[in-house]
């Protein structure tokens, strides 16, 4: 079927369908964005109309009352540290699995499936207890590692979710010819140096894709911060949003402004990196 061979009415129908789909996808997001730029009066009198003039009063107020500077700092800290951790762990593990004598393919695949199928809710209680125990041990040994009331337990939990990254990066490593490493080995490079100086630069596309993926995922995650971050100074953006929406139920304009503050960063990341994200998605599926 070649598009240009179709008759004009069919082609028009086709574009009409696409336009309807595009509008219904964009509408909730644009509604959120422009509503947060309206003044309170406008939100009251025409909740779904376009703004007549752009005002940042609600954005500024939501930023202040929701303590968004704090939320952003917490979210960025947790996401960045977790991503760095998970990428280092998965890259070394992927290299070990790709180049040494493990017949780990099948086991890894099974682990991936099991990891997906395990309801994280089954892990919540024992994990929470485990962190409390580790925390008391750290206290007894006078180690300055706070495992409760700190972002650390969330970060450690995130860092254990490496199966996707391992599978993805490992597949990329396998496609790199081993002669390159042999050459480096002949030149006297050590194993870790080979990984750092030869393999990682070559596998950068896969690593970058995983970085973006996990960052957005950690940014949006709600459950683990809900379990570990009880102090309001530690809250991440999803948690902050939840409390904010509960507190200002009647102030719609303020609520929507807060939603925009939370949703814009992932949207921006997507717009910047959408090609890489989509390629990553499809490659992951093809290797299933």
């Amino acid at each position, binding site marked *: 079927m070649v*598009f240009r061979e179709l008759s004009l009415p069919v082609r028009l129908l086709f574009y009409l369908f696409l336009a309807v789909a595009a509008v219904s996808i964009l509408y909730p997001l644009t509604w959120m964005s422009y509503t947060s730029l309206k003044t309170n009066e406008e939100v009251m009198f025409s909740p779904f109309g376009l703004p007549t003039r752009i005002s940042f009063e609600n954005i500024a107020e939501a930023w202040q009352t929701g303590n968004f500077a704090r939320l952003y700092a917490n979210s960025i800290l947790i996401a960045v540290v977790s991503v760095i951790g998970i990428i280092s762990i998965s890259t070394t593990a992927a290299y070990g699995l790709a180049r040494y004598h493990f017949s780990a393919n099948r086991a890894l695949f099974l682990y991936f499936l099991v990891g997906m199928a395990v309801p994280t*809710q089954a892990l919540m*209680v024992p994990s929470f207890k485990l962190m409390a125990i580790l925390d008391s041990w750290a206290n007894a040994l006078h180690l300055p590692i706070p495992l409760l009331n700190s972002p650390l337990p969330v970060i450690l939990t995130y860092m254990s979710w490496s199966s996707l990254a391992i599978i993805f990066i490992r597949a990329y490593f396998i496609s790199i010819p081993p002669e390159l490493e042999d050459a480096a080995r002949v030149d006297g490079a050590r194993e870790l140096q080979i990984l750092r100086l030869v393999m990682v630069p070559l596998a950068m596309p896969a690593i970058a894709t995983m970085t973006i993926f996990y960052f957005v995922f950690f940014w949006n995650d709600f459950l683990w911060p809900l379990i570990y971050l009880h102090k309001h100074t530690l809250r991440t953006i999803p948690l902050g949003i939840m409390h904010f929406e509960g507190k200002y139920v009647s102030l719609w304009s303020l609520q929507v402004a807060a939603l925009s503050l939370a949703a814009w960063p992932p949207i921006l990341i997507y717009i910047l990196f959408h090609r890489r994200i989509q390629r990553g998605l499809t*490659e992951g599926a093809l290797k*299933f």
Partner: protein
Amino acid sequence: MANLSQADSALPQMRPGRFRLPRGEAWRENLYGYLFISPWILGFVLFLAGPLLVSLGLMFTEYAGFKKITYVGLANFEELIKFDIRFIGSLRVSAVFAFWTVSLAIIISLAMALLLNQRFKGHTFFRGLFYLPAAVSGVAMTFVWAAMFEKDYGMFNQILRIFDFDRVAWLTSIEWALPSYIIMRLYGVGHYMVIMLAGLQSIPDDLHEAAKVDGASGLALFRHITLPLLSPTIFFLMIVGMIGSLQVFTEGFMLTQGGPARSTLFYVLYLYIVAFTERRFGYASVLAWLLFLIIMGLTLLQFWLARRWVHYESQEA
């Protein structure tokens, strides 16, 4: 990536490591191998396998999260089978939700992918646009949807009013609450579409050309060439979609907490309520493991069924 064709196999095949050190140094090789994977193994044991084993043990206890743990034998299982109405209800809610979201998402994304696979002006733009909602999912989007479903001013009821229909109490009525969540989920259908589209594009053009020369019509082409060659992709989406939708939690937790009249009490939401509101961790562990078994069972069943309908090129070669 053409060299990683999906026709490869559903399960990755065992591939021997390509690189081999000299024989006498096998011990060294193993050592390095284990060193490389040790951080991962450590995290896996501490934060996945360990807690999982603990929750396995908790199934036979009563435990409220404090010091005292009471061994109760099989009492939790007995309660599950004999007395728990909420459990049956939540299982039904999740099953209905998973069935409709996965089947609708596959049909819609297939249609969209077939459209976007045409080479018309702007197809990359539309592809990027359709994936956008999947990227911004999460808490903020859930609240935006709550506003869309709002009874008086929400977008859906505004549209219904234009066409002179009665208002619908989307998230607050027993009939419409669950369908509302299904609609909400389908907003992320772009995720399926991108993968479907990649599957379509990996089908070689010459197969279609050859069939056309033999006089096959558009529908026959779709039925006998596109669909069989796309079946591994559809299979992948069915598995991933099923697992994901059986675990739905966040939306329900934030918007309706299971109401009205338990019509949106998703299984995992019920599990969370048992664990953290009622603080019955033993019973919650039973629920969690049962869900795990259900998901694994369904996945294996699908793998078994897949032999009848999923077409892998390598099997014929």
